[in-house]
């Protein structure tokens, strides 16, 4: 029960999807089963989102219980979950309710975009002390990077029309070649890892044993 059932489930689902993809001509009804199974997968993923929230609650609940100095922040987190959930359920249709819209557009969205936008400052400081031509590899990387940065800005063409054309060459040729090699290798990796998971050779993902 603990070992065989999960391996069996993974195997059946995996084989179903692969079979449907390559060989559905042999057994047309398999298409509907595969679509249903994928719809189930989507539903189960939705429950997993709930599990993640439950875990957040457990961790922060513990922080509050232990009277951690930052416990008030955990309360803030609970408040965030609570108000967003409640107003979210009442926000019907395309137009969200007022409170929900305030929470989303007035807090959630600006917090998210602001947090993201500070990253360019880390680049600025890393530019000074981290991005250094330590060896020939890094030199290649940095020279290409600087060319692309200049070539991609509208001002690049004013400096020299060479920059935009060099940029477009770098992206269309060496970049495509390098990324393609990576893709080819990664695709093989996905097939093999997928195979190991489906036939149950790697049981660690089912929780060990």
């Amino acid at each position: 029960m603990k070992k065989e059932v999960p391996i069996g489930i993974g195997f059946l689902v995996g084989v179903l999807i692969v079979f449907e993809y390559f060989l559905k001509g042999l057994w047309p009804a398999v298409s509907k089963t595969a679509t249903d199974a994928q719809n189930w997968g989507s539903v189960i993923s939705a429950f997993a989102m709930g599990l993640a929230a439950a875990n957040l609650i457990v961790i922060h609940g513990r922080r509050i219980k232990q009277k951690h100095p930052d416990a008030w922040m955990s309360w803030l987190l609970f408040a965030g979950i609570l108000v967003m959930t409640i107003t979210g359920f009442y926000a019907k249709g395309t137009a969200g309710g007022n409170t929900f819209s305030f929470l989303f557009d007035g807090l959630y969205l600006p917090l998210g975009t602001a947090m993201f936008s500070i990253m360019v400052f880390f680049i600025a400081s890393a530019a000074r002390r981290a991005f250094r031509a330590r060896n020939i590899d890094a030199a290649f990387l940095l020279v290409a990077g600087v060319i692309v940065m200049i070539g991609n800005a509208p001002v690049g063409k004013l400096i020299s029309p060479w920059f935009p054309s060099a940029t477009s060459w770098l992206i269309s040729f060496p970049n495509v070649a390098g990324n393609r090699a990576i893709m080819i290798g990664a695709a093989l990796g996905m097939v093999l890892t997928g195979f190991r998971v489906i036939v149950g050779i790697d049981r660690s993902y089912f929780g060990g044993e």
Partner: protein
Amino acid sequence: MNILKRFGEMDRRWLYVILLVMVVFPLLRPIGIPIDVSSSTAKFVASVDRLQAGDRMLLVFDYSIGGGPDVDPQAQVVLAHALSKGVRVVEVAFVDTGLNYATKACDLWVSKGKVYGTDILNLGYAPGVETAISAFGQNIEAIFVRDVNGKAPSSYPIMEGIKTAGDFKLIAEFATGIPGPAEWIRQVVTRYKVPLACGVVSVMGPQNAPYLQSGQLVGLLGGGLKSAAEYEIAVKMPGAATAAMDAQSLGHLTIVVFVILGNILFLVERREQKAKKA
């Protein structure tokens, strides 16, 4: 030399201030550096231009709010371009926050007189990423039993004759991460040969370039806001992205100068260390 040393030792917050000034200044006092349209943007524009009035296009909002500002202007201008041609647009999201962008875009155009369910439709969001995309590709109503207004999609005229993702004339997907072009190509394009054009944050541009060269994508907006500006110029609808480009130019130059100074400093320090050892 002294200045270089001072640059090396100055508090990193000064670097932040310099960058900020270089970005804010051109926003307040635009310089008006001309913008050229790149060939991959032109391909995307052409893929929308090929559509006829009445054709159905799928617009996919696969973006998180973090990367949203880089990719949302692309989706906005593509949507405006398509609707201006009379193309009918079905919206969908496979990233949760994408739904909010989709809803706002839909509301905006409905308020401008487009008819919900005829010109534009918002299906909603489905969890499960690639699993959901694959299921959606094969049977839209299995995943979207209801649209965001709680009605069956098939009850709207815009969905007439559309059962799978392959029934759209064009799929335009906008992504900040996963799912992105790779997932859509894997799950939908290999199956239905439907034209897929993608807009992605600049970070993801280069890695998706092979798909454009191989023809698996018919268009790629690979440079985030910059690509949106190019698109705005190409379809003569200048907007926020175009207005941002002067700041983009000066910002790039600032970072380039930092990198170059940092490396000169590095060389100087290395030479000094060698001299000390000798």
